[in-house]
């Protein structure tokens, strides 16, 4: 037998192979979970395991979805309490100096919601939204006394926006939605005038302050606020003086 024949015969020994059933069984014994897991993918337990594994992720998505959806709700809606809870948290997390500003923003949000409610004629949401607006305004009024004089100015723009929104809503609905706004403006203008009186003002500024005081005395808080806002913004103030 030549070497070539010998090698050829040797290679025929490749036919020596393990029994397939034995090979499979041995594999299962060594790696027991391999087959069982493959076959139990649809078992109840496996599905339960999957559910457990995804539970935190699903929970996060559900919460995000709920908050996202709740954000579009208005007072009286089923999911509004979630939105309300988020707002309470927002107020709770803000400092005492910021709380009035937050309540004012929330009151503005209620007014915007009232505009939407009026557009779609969602009558049942009207009363709860007005109530929420009034509550926010009451909270804002209560918070004014604990505010720092330096932060009063920050409320002026939000208050002006609130007044505009309120007038628009009242004209659409044809109803008065509470005197809390006037009370808030009354107190805010009072604090602002008192603060300005302690400062050294130029001639134009003194003139503006005098006008604001006149409007305040006459009960026209909106115009008084406008004069104070002009006084507090030097660029606007100088423009007014030039006129």
């Amino acid at each position, binding site marked *: 037998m030549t070497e070539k024949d010998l*090698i050829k015969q040797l290679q025929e020994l490749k036919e020596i192979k*393990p029994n397939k059933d034995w090979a499979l069984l041995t594999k299962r014994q060594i790696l027991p979970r*391999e087959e069982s897991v493959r076959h139990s993918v649809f078992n109840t337990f496996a599905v339960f395991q999957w559910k457990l594994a995804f539970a935190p992720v699903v929970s996060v998505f559900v919460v995000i979805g709920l908050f996202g959806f709740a954000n579009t709700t208005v007072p009286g809606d089923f999911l509004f309490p979630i939105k309300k809870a988020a707002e309470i948290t927002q107020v709770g997390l803000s400092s005492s100096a910021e709380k009035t500003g937050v309540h004012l923003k929330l009151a503005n949000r209620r007014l915007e919601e009232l505009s939407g409610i009026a557009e779609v004629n969602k009558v049942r949401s009207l009363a709860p939204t007005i109530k929420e607006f009034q509550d926010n305004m009451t909270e804002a009024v209560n918070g004014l006394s604990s505010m720092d004089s330096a932060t009063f100015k920050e409320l002026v723009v939000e208050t002006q926006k609130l007044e505009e929104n309120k007038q628009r809503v009242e004209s659409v609905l044809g109803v008065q939605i509470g005197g809390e706004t006037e009370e808030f403006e009354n107190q805010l203008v009072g604090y602002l005038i008192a603060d300005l009186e302690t400062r050294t003002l130029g001639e134009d500024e003194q003139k503006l302050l005098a006008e604001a005081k006149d409007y305040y005395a006459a009960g026209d808080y909106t115009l008084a606020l406008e004069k104070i806002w002009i006084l507090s913004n030097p660029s606007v103030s100088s423009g007014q003086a030039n006129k």
Partner: protein
Amino acid sequence: MSQLQKQFGKIYDKYIEKIYRFVFLKVNSREIAEDLTAEVFTRGWESFHDNKCDIKNPQAFLYQIARNLIVDHYREKSQRQVVPVENVTLPERGASLEEQAILTSDVWTVKAALENINEDYREIIVWYYLDELSVPEIAKILNKSEDAVRVQIHRAIQALKGEVGGV
């Protein structure tokens, strides 16, 4: 199934035939070859699992386990020989009927010759001509130089050739 199990499952599928054949040609018994091969992969899986699959050459690793187990097997076998004859179950020699049917008479002659040559020569012939391991791969398993392996392959085939002539 864990990623480790998947990886070792692939290694198992790839090398089960080679390892079984390697063991079978050394112990010449299907039952013993199956037992030892199963043990090779069990130990392989344990090491693979413990080392977090950090085994660079699984083939060389499995052959090394197989070699050690075969050595242990023969050591135990030689120890058993001191037991009184009436208590000894003689190990199976020769291939099963099924295996005999697969192999032609010429191949059977070669197989018989293979059993009679030096253990190291048999090992290297199986690796090189049957399992088609390269010279560098064999050199790694044996921890020898490639030149030394080439020389040993040459000597092994000559020894087999001589044995076939003598069978």
